[in-house]
């Protein structure tokens, strides 16, 4: 498992350049361009189970969802940041991508330190230190846990149609 660490205010243009926004929508079209203008190594070397660390306001800027779709598709286990921009935060819930808001874990992280996620306990261990992180309200967690918003919506529509 590899940690990819970035700074503050990483915007969605850096995560997925605008010039591809209207020609790439499917995961396989998105993957080669992920983080293209931020870290050209990322798309080549990222592996399922990797974690992204970042500073404040991660995912600010455009509402394009390709960064979230792409990060989910390459198997990023979670993003750990000081804070997130709200459209990105919501897009991650809708794609079932785990975002962890934990400034202390970001401060504790230094390159080379081992990182372990404990999902059941909602905590993360960085080096020797373990930090609790906040979880989503149950009604929102239900969307993420359904596998994302469309799966959640489909289940609701089917239940409604079945009830008639």
């Amino acid at each position, binding site marked *: 498992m590899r940690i990819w660490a970035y700074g503050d205010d990483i915007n969605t243009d850096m995560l997925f350049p605008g010039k591809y926004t209207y020609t790439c929508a499917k995961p396989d079209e998105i993957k080669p361009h992920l983080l293209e203008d931020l870290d050209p190594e990322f798309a080549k070397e990222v592996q399922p189970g990797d974690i992204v660390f970042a500073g404040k306001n991660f995912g600010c800027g455009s*509402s394009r969802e390709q960064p979230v779709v792409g990060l989910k598709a390459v198997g990023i286990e979670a993003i750990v940041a000081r804070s997130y921009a709200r459209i990105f935060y919501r897009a991650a819930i*809708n794609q079932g991508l785990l975002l962890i808001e934990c400034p202390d874990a970001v401060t504790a992280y230094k390159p080379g330190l081992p990182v372990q996620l404990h999902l059941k306990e909602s905590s993360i261990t960085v080096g020797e230190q373990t930090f609790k992180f906040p979880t989503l309200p149950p009604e929102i967690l239900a969307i993420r846990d359904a596998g*994302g918003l469309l799966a959640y919506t489909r289940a609701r529509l089917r239940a409604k149609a079945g009830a008639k």
Partner: protein
Amino acid sequence: MPMTFAEKVLSRKAGKTSARAGDLVTCKPDRLLMHDNAAAITDKVAKDMAEFGIANPEQPVIVLDHVIPASDEKTATSHKKIREFVRKYGIKHFFDIGTGVCHQVMVEKGLILPGMLAVGSDSHTCSYGAVNAFATGIDRTEAASLLLTGETWFKVPETIRITLKGRLPEMVSAKDLILTIIGKVGADGADYCSVEFWGDIANLTIDDRFTIANMGVEMGAKNAVFPVDEITKGYLQEIGVKRMSWNPEWADDGATYRQELSWNMAEVVPAIAVPHKVDKYKPVTELAGLEIQQCLIGTCTNGRASDLAVAAGILCGKKVSASTRLLILPASRAELEKALDSGDIQALVSAGAVLLPPGCGPCLGAHQGCLAPGERCLSTSNRNFKGRMGCKDAEIYLASPATVAATALTGRITDPREVA
């Protein structure tokens, strides 16, 4: 308990007597905006729409603006798909290429009214706060789900109140004001928050308010909003909206704010946001003389006839410097027509400007006016992110129409107060 604007609109739309900051509510937005991304959005739920239909054909608004006219087969195919979707599902509000940038079109077609709740699959949806709507951006998947259900959840945001005092000086505009505010508040300073602007807003036109609300998202805001006053009423009347059809909201006295800020507009100077973040504020005087290869006046931030008039006032009878190029990108056909009638387009084109069709064009780097490595662009758009205009090794600086026009004359960043 006194409520903020956001609390009031979201309470009403959720059918509750009182929703407080932090509460989760479910609402049916009055409008759902999509643009060229409607092709990808409808693709996600094509089968579901066939099975369940769409929730409300009056809710979606589709405006083709991002890559227009189509730049290649792929974008042309997306546009074709969208036109077919509009016909098949009887989408009531559809605007084909050339009508304008979606945000300008939403407001000028009377589709956004005071007190409305609007969502859009575009981050600059927050613009509609200029006419007192609660408007916020969402991702494509959320838009797809809304097509099926017509409703979604909202977390009621905390609110920051910004009091604007006084009047902007000559050759200083709403763009300079909002760049100054974002420079102070920071790119994340209003994350998850509603931002209420009030105070001496009688000194700001609807166009000014549009520029300010448009950039709310650049400080992280969920929405940015102005109260309704005589200027709003005059504007809505001008575009043919009937008074009975709207329901303005404003915060109660004594509402709870996360933060209260105040700005003296008389102290604002021409401002520039330097690469690669919108909150990297500098007064124009610190950058005067910097060579600029491309100037862009327009976009949903500053592409209205009033912006083009300021530019024409500076460039009329003169020539764009041979060391730079000037692109004009009107916000909509209606705004372009106003600028044609006034003679401002004639003045700009005669001065050497290149006129682009009303749309998003170079702002997002998909086509039209991409930059080359090592080039600098001075733009009236809302983002200066790395790679934004198609090239990661180029630089984008943001400024007002007056500063960009003054710079087009010299090919170097120029204080508009010097050429006025």
